[in-house]
C-alpha cells in the first residue's frame, strides 16, 4: 500500500469563511468553490495549517514528521531547499460540501444534500461499515426525506425551503445517510436524521449559489475610527451547521530517526474529536468547526 487514507467530517459550528484568500485589493471575498460545479470546499492546505497548530502538543520530532519542517525564515528568502528537508507524512485533502443547512418553513432548517454531493462523498468513504449505496438521481425537481422528517408537513408531503416548494417523498436511503453521517457526532444525534433531505442536483446547484451567508463588511480605520473609504466588501460564508467531507492520507514518516507507520501518523493527526478554529476571524466568532473521523477500525485498503 502506498498511502493510507482516512475520511473525516468537518462540521461548521459557526459561519465558516473558507476563502480563496484575501488577495491584494480583491474587493469581495467569496468562499472557495469548485469552478465547474460550484460546490463549496475548504482547501486541504488551510486545514493542514490549522491542524498543525492544533497538534502542537505532540513530541516535536513526531510533529515535524507529520507536518514537515517549518521554514526558518519567512518570505522568499526562506524558500530555499535545505539539508535534511523532508515532506510531511500527512496529506490533507480538501473538505467538500456534503450537506448545507437551508431555512425550512417547518423544523427551522433542513440539512440539504443531493445525489451528486453524496456520490462524491461515497468515494471518500468507500470501505467504511454501513456506507449507504448509491443515491439514484431524482427524475425531476423534488426532494427525498427520511421517515420521521420534521421538515415536511405530513399531510401535504412538501418541503418548503426558503422560497422553493418541493414535492417530497420518503426514501429509506436518506435515513441511512443521516445515520451514517451522524456516527461522527460525539453523542447520539437525532437532529440530523429529522432534518436530512436530498434534493435533485439542479435544485442543489441553485441552493449552492443562494443559500450561503453574504454580509457586507467595512474596514474601520484604526486611527480615525471611521469607515475606510473604498474598504467595503462583501464576505460570503458557509452557514453554521454546514457539513463537509474530506480525507486525510499518510505514508510512512520520512523524517530520519522518527519511525512512524502510516497508521500511526493518521492516529496522531486525528485524536478523537477536535475543535478547530479555521481562518483568522475568531474575534467575530467565525470559523469554529469540529473535525471528526468515523469511529471503528481503520479500513482495509481498496482494490
Amino acid at each position, binding site marked *: 500500500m502506498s498511502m493510507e487514507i482516512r475520511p473525516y467530517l468537518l462540521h461548521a459550528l459557526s459561519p465558516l469563511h473558507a476563502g480563496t484568500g484575501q488577495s491584494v485589493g480583491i474587493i*469581495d471575498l467569496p468562499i472557495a468553490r469548485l469552478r465547474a460545479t460550484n460546490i463549496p470546499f475548504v482547501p486541504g492546505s488551510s486545514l493542514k495549517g490549522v491542524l498543525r497548530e492544533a497538534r502542537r502538543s505532540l513530541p516535536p520530532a513526531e510533529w515535524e514528521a507529520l507536518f514537515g519542517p517549518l521554514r526558518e525564515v519567512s518570505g*522568499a528568502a526562506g524558500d530555499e531547499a535545505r539539508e535534511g528537508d523532508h515532506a510531511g507524512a500527512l496529506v490533507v485533502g480538501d473538505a467538500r460540501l456534503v450537506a448545507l443547512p437551508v431555512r425550512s418553513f417547518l423544523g427551522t432548517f433542513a440539512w440539504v444534500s443531493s445525489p451528486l454531493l453524496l456520490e462524491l462523498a461515497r468515494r471518500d468513504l468507500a470501505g467504511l461499515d454501513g456506507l449507504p449505496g448509491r443515491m439514484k438521481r431524482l427524475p425531476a425537481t423534488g426532494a427525498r426525506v427520511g421517515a420521521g422528517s420534521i421538515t415536511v408537513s405530513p399531510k401535504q408531503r412538501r418541503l418548503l425551503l426558503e422560497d422553493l416548494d418541493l414535492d417530497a417523498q420518503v426514501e429509506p436511503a436518506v435515513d441511512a445517510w443521516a445515520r451514517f453521517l451522524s456516527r461522527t457526532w460525539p453523542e447520539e444525534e437525532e437532529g440530523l436524521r429529522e432534518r436530512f433531505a436530498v434534493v435533485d442536483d439542479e435544485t442543489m446547484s441553485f441552493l449552492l449559489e443562494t443559500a450561503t451567508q453574504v454580509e457586507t463588511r467595512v474596514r474601520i480605520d484604526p486611527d480615525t475610527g471611521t469607515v475606510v473609504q*473604498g474598504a467595503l466588501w462583501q464576505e460570503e460564508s458557509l452557514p453554521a451547521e454546514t457539513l463537509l467531507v474530506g480525507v486525510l492520507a499518510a505514508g510512512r514518516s520520512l523524517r530520519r530517526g522518527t519511525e512512524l507507520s502510516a497508521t500511526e501518523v493518521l492516529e496522531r493527526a486525528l485524536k478523537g474529536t477536535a475543535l478547530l478554529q479555521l481562518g483568522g476571524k475568531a474575534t467575530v466568532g467565525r470559523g469554529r468547526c469540529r473535525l471528526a473521523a468515523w469511529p471503528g477500525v481503520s479500513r482495509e485498503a481498496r482494490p
Partner: protein
Amino acid sequence: MSTAHLLLMSLGPVQDFIAQARRTRDLWFGSHVLSELSLEAARTAQKLQAELIFPALVEGEEAAPSVPNKLLVLVRQGDPREVARAAREAARTRLRDWGMEVWYKHPQLVDAGALGTAQEQLGTLLEFHAAWCSFSPPDEYRNALSFVEAALAERKRLRPFAPWKHQRGGRHKSSLDGARESVLVEGRREGGDWSRFRIGRREELDAIGLLKRTGGKPGQFIPVPTIGLAAYTALAKETKAPAMERLRRECSRFLTPVQPGKREWVRDFPFDAQLLLPGRWSTYLEEQELEREVAERFGQDFVRPLLATLGEPFPYVACLMADGDKMGETLQTLASHGPTAHQSLSRTLSGFASEARRIIEEQHRGVLVYAGGDDVVGFVCLPDALGCAAELSRAFSAAMKRGLEGRGVKEPTLSVGLGVGHVLESLGDLLDLGRRAEQLAKGEDRNGFALLARLRSSREHAWRLRWSDGPVKAIEDTVTLREKGTLPMTKVREVYTALRRIPRHAVSPQDEARWRPVLLGEVQRVLARVEAGTPGAGLTPQQAGLDLKEDGTLEELHTQVEAWAERVFLAEMLSRATLRSRGDTRGAA
C-alpha cells in the same frame, strides 16, 4: 511588362514573447526589441534595392511607434532569396549583438560560465519565414499576394526546432518563460544592478530575459501601477498638494523617478504607484534594500495620511487592445489597384499608429506598448479608458476614410477591447485579459467595443456593444444611475439570482409561454420595489437602463437581462474607480 518578385516575410515569436514579462520594462522593452528586429530586416531589404509595401517606414516625428512583424516587399531586381536571407541574418545578428552588449555591460549579474548557454538562447530565439513569387505588376499583384500569403501560412504549420545543446543542468529556469536556463550568477544578490533592475531574490532570467530587463534605462518605463493609479495621483496632487509634495520628496531620496517624456500626467507622481497600496510599500521598498522598519515608517508617515484623507485607490488598470476589422478583405480588394494602392494605405496606417500613441499617452492617461498599423496595445487608467477606446475608433475610421477615398473600397472599422485587472497582476495575464476583450469586441459582426473585468480571483464580468449602438453612452448612463443611488446593487444581484431560476431555453411552446411572463414579471417586480434607504420611488426597467424587448423569445430576454446586469456590474466598477469624497459609502448595498 517587366516582372518583379513579391516577397512576404514574417518574424517571430510575437505574442508569447511579449507576454513573457514580469516587470513593466520587460514588456515594453520586449515589444521594442521585436520592432527593432523588424526594422533591421526592413532596412536591410531596402539596402538591397527592395521596395517596402508594408509597412511604410516614415522618418521623424510622424514615425509609427512600432514596426509590425510582417513585411511585404517588392523586389524589382536581384534574387528574392538573397533579400530574405539578408533580412533574416540582419535581424538575427542584431539580436545576438544586443544580447551580448547587455551581457558584457552587467558582469555583476551574469554567470561567466553561462556564456555558451546565453549565445545559444540568443541565436535560437528568432523565427523567420518567407515566401515569394514572380509576377508582372500591377495586374498580377493581387494573385501574387494571395500566393505568397497562402504559402507562408502553409509553411508555418511546421515549426522546426532542435534540442538545446548548451545547457548546464541543475539550474533554475527563467521566471519569464519557464524553459530557458537562467544565466544569472548564483549567490548573494545585493545592491548595484540587482536593485537597479529590480531583479528579485528568487527571480531568474535567461539571456533574452536579461535583455528585456536591462536593455533599457531604469526610469524609461512607466510602471503599470502608476498608470492604474494616475487618476488618483492627479486628484491627490490637485487637492492635497502639500502631502503629495512631501511624499514625492521622500521618494526622490531613494528611488529613481521615471521619465515622463510627453506624458505630462506622469509628472503628478513619477514613481511606481504601488507605493500607495496598503500592504505593498514595505515589500516594494524592501526590494530596494531598505530596512523593514524604514519601509514601515515611510508608509506611516507619508502614505497613510494621504490615504486617510483621500481614501484608498482602486488598484485596477485597463489593458487596451484594438485591431482593424476585416483588414484582410480590404487589402485583397485594394490589391487590384496594384502595389501603389497598398503603399498609400500603408502610409495611412503608419500615420494612424502615431496618432494612436498621441491619443493614448497625451490625450489620455495611458502608455502605449505597441502600435504598428491597425494593431494597438496599451494600458490606460480606468477613468480614461472608455474615452480613449472611443477616440481610437473614431481616429481609425477617419484615417481610413481619408486613406481609401476614391478607391471604392468599404472602409474598415476598429474593434477595441478593454481588459481590466489588478495593477499587480502578472503582465502576461493582463495582456491575456486585453486579448480576450478584443476577441469579444470583434464578435461575429465586428466594429465592436467590449469591456471585460476580472475583479476577484474567479468572477469575471463582460459586456459588448457595437460602436454604432453607442456603448460609451450606455455605460456612462449606467454609471450616472449608480451614482445617483437610485439603482442599488442588491436589486441587480436579485435580478441576477432570479435569472438563475428561470431556464434559458424553453423545451416546448407551452414552457416558453409559461416562463416568459415569469421572467418579465420578476425583473419588473424587483426593480419597482421601493427599498429602505434608497431615494425616490422604484424604477421601471427603462429607468434602470434596461430597455426590455417584451416581444422577445425567452432566450433573447435572458440574454438581454444578463447583458444589462453585466453592464451595471461594470458601471459599478467604473464608478468605484472614479474618486469620491471621503466617507461616502454609496454602492454599499
